[in-house]
């Protein structure tokens, strides 16, 4: 009789708690969004599955000794996974549009206002009972506005590991929602005439320039903002492997195998942070609201900056491309192209939007470095 009772106590059914069941439902929701709706499936699928695994009672996958515990410890606690992904992103990024028109960096800088405004908003939220965000928490939440998954995970793992699950889910969900969040803001802030502005064709960028660019970014970061070196350094390594043209094998690995393998484990590790006691809190709701705010403010400030530049610039600048400054490569640039085509079916803004788009990646890495240096 006692044996049967022990066996019963070892089953999942006897040990399920309501919070863990809710979290398994959240995991299933993420799987649904990934599979049926196609929302960032590469990440939401492993994250959702990780969330389910971690909430299975008795198995203890996220307890010391469990698989997910070690995956998290090895990959995210150390910061290695987001950095490996960043190397792959560097190898996937073509900076031609930015080198041809370096002023686009200003748009990437302006869109980072979403990050810093959200930081302020997160602290402001402390006036609402139930919220107790520290400056570290607020900074980690704010980086959602950088619209860059690896940067958000890297910073959250350093500043607020407890909030990492919610922050990563918010960051990737909103990146998937860029085509829904951005266009209304872009339309509201621009006139139809502005949206029709045609931009002159970009000049051709030589191979030498493309090779020197990552080295230059690296040396400037080393001189002015060493705190950003982990992110920027790996990014530049990936980009140099791509542009040098002598290590195609390494570049291809970084773009494909390494980034894919890392994505699986990064997703699982992030999912393992979706435990009931950490996720089912009022703070998660705050993070989701602040994340949306961060995207909206970033988009708006990018568009405003582009409008300003258009006033003072000799060559016309379509204000829509400012919205691509939030990064979220290449989704945000595609959204700009689409909204531009609505106003003028012959005006293709994709290449022009890629400039601020990749500038946004650099901008959010720099912003992350600044937050690490000041708050970390």
């Amino acid at each position, binding site marked *: 009789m006692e044996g049967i009772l022990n066996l019963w106590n070892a089953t999942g059914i006897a040990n399920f708690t309501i919070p863990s069941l809710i979290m398994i439902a959240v995991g299933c929701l993420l799987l649904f969004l990934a599979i049926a709706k196609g929302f960032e499936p590469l990440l939401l699928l492993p994250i959702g599955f990780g969330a389910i695994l971690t909430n299975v009672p008795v198995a203890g996958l996220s307890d010391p000794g469990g698989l997910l515990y070690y995956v998290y410890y090895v990959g995210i606690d150390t910061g290695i996974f987001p950095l490996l992904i960043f190397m792959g992103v560097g190898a996937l990024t073509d900076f031609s549009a930015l080198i041809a028109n370096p002023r686009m*960096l200003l748009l990437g*800088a302006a869109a*980072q206002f979403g990050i810093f405004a959200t*930081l*302020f908003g997160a*602290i402001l939220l*402390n006036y609402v009972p139930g919220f107790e965000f520290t400056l570290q928490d607020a900074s980690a939440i704010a980086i959602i506005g950088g619209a860059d998954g690896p940067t958000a995970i890297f910073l959250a793992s350093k500043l607020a590991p407890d909030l990492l699950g919610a922050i990563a889910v918010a960051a990737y969900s909103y990146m998937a929602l860029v085509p829904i969040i951005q266009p209304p803001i872009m339309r509201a802030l621009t006139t139809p005439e502005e949206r029709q502005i045609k931009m002159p064709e970009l000049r051709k960028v030589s191979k030498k320039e493309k090779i020197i660019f990552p080295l230059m970014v690296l040396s400037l970061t080393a001189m002015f903002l060493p705190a950003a070196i982990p992110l920027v350094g790996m990014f530049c390594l990936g980009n140099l492997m791509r542009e040098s043209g002598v290590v195609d094998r390494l570049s291809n690995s970084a773009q494909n195998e390494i980034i894919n393998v890392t994505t699986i484990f990064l997703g699982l590790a992030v999912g393992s942070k979706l435990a009931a006691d950490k996720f089912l809190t009022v703070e998660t709701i705050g993070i989701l609201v602040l994340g949306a705010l961060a995207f909206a403010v970033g988009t708006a400030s990018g568009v405003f900056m582009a409008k300003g530049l258009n006033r003072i610039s000799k060559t016309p600048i379509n204000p829509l491309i400012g919205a691509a400054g939030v990064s979220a490569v290449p989704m945000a640039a595609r959204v700009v192209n689409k909204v531009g085509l609505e106003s003028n079916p012959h005006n293709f803004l994709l290449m022009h939007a890629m400039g601020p788009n990749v500038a946004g990646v650099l901008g959010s890495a720099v912003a992350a470095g600044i*937050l690490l240096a*000041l708050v970390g």
Partner: protein
Amino acid sequence: MDIGALLTTAGNLMLTGMVGVFVFLSILIGAVTLMSNLVTRFSEPDVATPVKSPSFKSQGVPNEHIAAISAAIAQYKSNNN
């Protein structure tokens, strides 16, 4: 720390952060512009060789092989005539 003091710190952080991002990326703009100017000034007009024979390149057949094959065909023809 009370919320008021935190807000002041956050406000300061917002200001320094934005100034930092703008200053850094502005320096980068200057550096990229300078680099592009130097590269275009000091490099000879664009080398056109890579564009010259794109079809051979894409098939991965080196020029020496093509030369060797053509020579062999020529020899074969001359032997059979």
